[in-house]
Every structure is written in C-alpha cells, then in structure tokens.
C-alpha cells in the first residue's frame, strides 16, 4: 500500500480528531452515572437524591448523635444542615478531626430506607480546613 505524504497527513489528522471525539464520548458515557453529586440533608428530605447512586453528603455532625455499635468499628451519627437530618452509618476508622458539631463530608450511597451508608468520611487535614461546599452552606445560613 503506497500512500502519498499528503494523504497520509490527512489520515493522521482524521485519526487524531476521531481519537479526541472518542475520548470526549467515552468521558461523557463514564460521567453519566459515575459522577457523585453533592447533596445536603435537605436535598434528601426533598427526595432529590436517588437511592443507590454514588453521592457525597455534607453537613454538620449533630451534637449527641454519635454512637458506636457493639462491634467497636461501626459508627452511627446524624448529619444536619440546620433544616433536615440524615442518619449515617460508617464502618472504619474515622478521620482524626471527625467529631460532633464539626463539618463532615461522607461519600457513599443512600439505602432505600433513607439511611446513608458511607464508605468514606473525608478527612479534614487541619483545623482551618472546610470543604468548599460546607463553607457555602454555612455562609448561606
């Protein structure tokens, strides 16, 4: 197969364009059900959060709500945004600065009964840190 340089360049340009379009299509397909939306307890109360989809729940850990199961490694607490509340369960070691009355972002899924099953509690790296979503929520109040 002999090709002229000019044709070869055209083929390469078309290939490069196809690859880029392919990448964008692939990315859009991937994003469709894999992007985790940030929700607040009010969103959940309003029925805006579908169960069994990856999401991030943000709010304050309600004072007096933090309880540990008898197995010693499962914690239950309530996340509140001042208007509504969502119960959360998490199995694992909580981040160092996770405590009642402070901000939290939990990654996980909502089960059909309205319990938020977290598979990750986002670590706060220092006392000045606040997730931007939280900062907005607090500022809005």
């Amino acid at each position: 197969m002999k090709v002229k340089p000019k044709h070869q360049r055209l083929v390469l340009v078309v290939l490069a364009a196809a690859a880029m379009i392919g990448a964008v299509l692939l990315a859009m397909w991937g994003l469709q059900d894999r992007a985790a939306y940030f929700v607040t307890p009010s969103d959940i109360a309003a029925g805006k959060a579908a169960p069994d989809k990856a999401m991030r729940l943000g709010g304050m850990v309600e004072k007096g709500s933090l309880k540990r199961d008898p197995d010693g490694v499962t914690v239950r607490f309530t996340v509140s945004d001042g208007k509504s509340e969502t119960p959360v369960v998490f199995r694992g070691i909580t981040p160092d600065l996770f405590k009642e009355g402070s901000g939290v972002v939990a990654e996980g899924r909502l089960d059909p009964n309205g319990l938020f099953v977290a598979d990750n509690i986002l670590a706060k790296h220092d006392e000045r840190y606040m997730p931007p979503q939280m900062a907005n929520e607090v500022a809005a109040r």
Partner: protein
Amino acid sequence: MIAEAGLAALWLAAALSALQLALAFGLGGEQGRSLPTIRSVALAQGLLTLLAFGALIAVFLNSDMSVLLVAENSHSEKPWLYKFAGAWGNHEGSMLLWVAVLALSGAVVALFEHRLDERTLGATLGAQAALALGFFAFLLFASNPFERLDPAPLDGRGLNPLLQDPGLAFHPPTLYLGYVGLSVAFSLAVGGLVRGNFGPAIARAMRPWVLAAWVLLTLGITAGSYWAYYELGWGGWWFWDPVENASLMPWLAATALLHSVNVLAARGGLRAWTMMLALIAFSMSMVGTFLVRSGILTSVHSFAVDPTRGTFILALLAIYIGGALTLFAFRIAHVKEGSPFEVVSREGGLVANNLILSVILGVVFVGTLYPLLAEALSGEKLSVGPPYFDSVASPMALVLAVLMMIAPQLKWRRDAAPILPRVAPGLLVAVAVLIASVILAPNIGMLPRFGLAIGAGLLPASLLPLFGRSLKRTPLAIWGMAIAHLGVAVAILGMASDSAFTEERLAAARPGETISIGPWLVEFRNVMPVAGPNWTALEAELRASKGSGALVLNPQSRFFPSPPTTTNEAAIDTSWNGQLYAVLGERDEQGRWQLRLWWKPFVTLIWLGGILIALGGALALVGRMVRERRQRIRGEEAFL
C-alpha cells in the same frame, strides 16, 4: 535584610526577562547580533532567581518571624529539615520555586544549546522569557513571598503535620523540575513555529528536556503515590484526586511527546503533531498549577488562597495556551509533510501509542475539570472519583500495554515480515496467566484479571528488543526503552495484585487479642505513650508472625501541638511478597482499640515499577547525550 535582598533580586530578574523578550523579538536590532546579549541576560536572570530562592530558604532556616510567610508556615522548634522544606510547603514559596526552575531552565538553554540556528534559538529564549515574565508578575503582584509582618510574632503557626515528612523535602521540587522542564519543550515549539523551523534539529534539542522532565515527573508521581500510601493511612496508593490528576496529565502528554519526538528526530515525521504535543505538555503543567494553586480545590495540596490569585493564574493560562494554539493554527500550513510510512511500522505503532495516550489524557482531563465546569455553569456540585477513572482510563491503559508488547518489535517505515512469531512470547504468557487466573482465582474483577495477564505478558515482551543483539553494543537508548517498558509491566502487576488479592481487617481489640490476616497472625500487645521532637503519640505494639519468623509493628496516633493536629502514622512491614500495613484508631468506652490491618501482596511492585520507568528514561537520556557528544566531536574532527 535577607528578605529585602530576595525581593530586589526578584524585581531585577523580572526586568531582565522583559528585556530578554524584547531583544529576542527584534527590538534590539539584527537577530544574530543580539543572541550573545540574550544569552547573558538569560543567565543573569536565572542566577538572580536562584538568589531569591536562596534568600527564602535563609529566612526559613533563621526562623525570621518578621516575614509573614515564615510566621504563617513555620515554627522555631521544627526540625531543621522541615524548616528547609517548609520554604516550599506553602503557596508563595512553591511559586517562587516554580519561577526559579523556569528561569534556570532558560539559562541552561542559553548556555548549552548549540544544535539550533541562532534565529530559532533566539525566538525560543524569547518564549521562555515571556513565560517567566508572567509568573514573575504573579509572584510580585499577587504572591510576594517576602512580605514583612509588623510587629513580628513571638513564634510561627507551624507547618501542617501531614507535611512534616522527609518525603516532602523531595516530592514537590522533583515534580516542579518535571513540570517546568516541559516549559523548554514549549518554548522550543514556539521558537520553531515562529521561525518556520520544524526539522529534526528541533526534536533533537527538545528530546533531552522531555526525557529529563519525564523522568522527574515519573519519580515525583511515584514518590507522591507512596507518600499518600503511608502517610494518609487509608491503604490506597492512588485516589484520582484532582491534584494527583494535575501531575498525571502533564506526565501523559510528556509520555506521548517523548515517543513522537523520536519519530521526528529519527525519521523527520509527525512534525505538526510533535509541536502540538510540546505545546500541550507544558499547558497541562500550567493547568495543573492552576488547579493546585488557585484554591478551587480542597485537598492536602491546596493552601488557602484568595480568589484574585486564581483569576491571575487563569489569565496567565489563557494568554499562554491561547497564544500558543493561535500561533500553531497560523503556522501549521507552513509545516511540510514528513516522510511517509506504512500502517504496520514502528511509526504506525508510535502513532497508535500517541492516540491512546491522548485519549487517556482526554478522559482524565474531562473527569478532572468537569466538576469545576458543572459548578460554574449550573451551580451543581459534584465530584468525579475512582468509579469514573477506573472504568474509562484503566482499560485504555491496558490496551496501551498490549500495544507495548507489539510495537517495539516493528521496523521503521514498513514491516512486511510476519509479526506473530516476534510477539508470540509475550502473548503466550499473557494467555497462560489469564487461563491460570480464571482457574485459581475465579472471583477477582475483570480489570485486575486482565492486568495480571497483560502485565505478565509484557514482562518478557518488554525485554525482547534486546534479544538477538550484542548486549555490549546495544545503544543505551534501547536499554532505556526495554527497562522503562519492563517497569510498566512491573507496575501493572503490582496494581493488579493489590486490587485482586488485598485482604483487610477492621477490628476493635483488647491488648492480648490476636487477629489473623493473609499469612499473618497479629497479636495486639499494648499501647504506650511516646514522644518525638515536636509531637507526642500513643504507640501500639503489634507482634506479627507467620510460619518462620515474627516482627513488631508500631502504628502511632500522633498529636502535634502547633498547629494542634492529630495524625495516624501507619506501620508498614515490607517482605518480598507484599506489605503488612497497620493503623491504630481510637479507644472506645470499653477499653478496646480500633485496629485496621491490610495484607497487600506484591503491592511494592507499583513503586518499583515507577522507579524502573524513571531509570529507563534516565538511561535513554544519558545514552542520547553521550552519542550526540561523540557525533559532534567526530563532526568537528571531520571538519578539520
């Protein structure tokens, strides 16, 4: 005094970069005649920036609390290594490091680049000065590292304890050298586009910079991954955090560039594409800087900053990337076609490599920036994490690994001989491992299963290019390629093994209790208080034993008084076949301690692979430089 001297040096260097830019684009008379001046200006600019960076390190080492940056980020009782590294463990200092590397790279090009004609070199140095000028302005107007604080506080606020780790002393500078090393490829591409020079000479001038930057990026990413693994105590080695992606994107572009630059240098092909990649690679470095430094992301890496800085960096990005792409669009018609090749050829394989890498770069780029875009457009807040990247980027990476088994076996231009016999060893191993994994480990996921098979197949396949050669006379660059590809195979095996075979135990245990995990029996002995130079900690004693021997692990929960923070220090034991990883959690009301244990078979291969990849790149770099030096000497002899 030192701080003022540093600031003065910065202003002078900025003025010199403006002068260099003006000289390079003809404001100082005839092109050829101004080159010696441009060279000395570039050198002076590099040295002044180095001086400013030295001044910053000095005020940190002296704990000069009258400097705002020191007061906010340091503490007089910190170990000296962290005072030193603390100089760049903050926004202003890290941007100064960035500019210092940028200016020094320009100085090195000015001093040592002899392959290019004067006009192209002049334009290249002009482009480098234009880049430096923007970042000098950013430092001086929006992030002055030498700002004074009056009155000076008695002591500083301290450095984030997570960052007080020997790894920090090396991780950011390594990454920055890599990021900014790509600026030279960018400037060379701009220089070539401006002067209409797209020949192999540009590629040869670009190659050492791309290789060096790529080696450092590889090391920086590998080190950062290991740092996150042992310091964050989550047992993971890659989180697809936007900041990690910010370093991965330039790496992907540089990987593509370093393959295409070889086609241009050796065969004169892929001209426009190589120029484009050179522009994109450094653009990705700048996008990474924007993501990390603008404060729009929250992670370990983003220091709290004000929004004007984000706007400033965004404006710089728009000017540089937009300008470069516009230049490309105008000059592309002047790029002549390179020499043709057939589909099945080394060039064909390298084009496929570039296309796949570009697709991976594209999906990582979209996934990383989509949340920012979605929030800006619709106000909706979301995050894109591992589920997305694992399902779109990882399979593409495996396709690329399959290509790596085949393409290095192909000949340049056209390859008419049957290919199957040449690639059979790798494919056979891959198929054998695939079948074995189905039989022996039926329950593992698709991605790790194919990872194991393809990684295992790539082990022999990566070494095949050395087969049948006299090993002594094989060029270092070929050794470099084989070792880097071997490193990819090793890293893939480590990743696949970690995700397929990792065992995890989470327990609340009383002293004296025993937990079994993998081949290990772990006895929880006790928890004792211990003290370090600027922290106190609770330290657990775990005795882990299996058949032959026993060892002791001491995970800690550390408390730092300034700033007041608690961190978990994981304890990790490395044996030949994996790592045992232990984290100590809290004590509950009944006197039980939370313990989290992982047994991670062959996880160390991930970072070993990263080191091999970097080693391969370093060998190729040395090989190319030695060979070019020899050719130059021979050329001079022939001339005489």
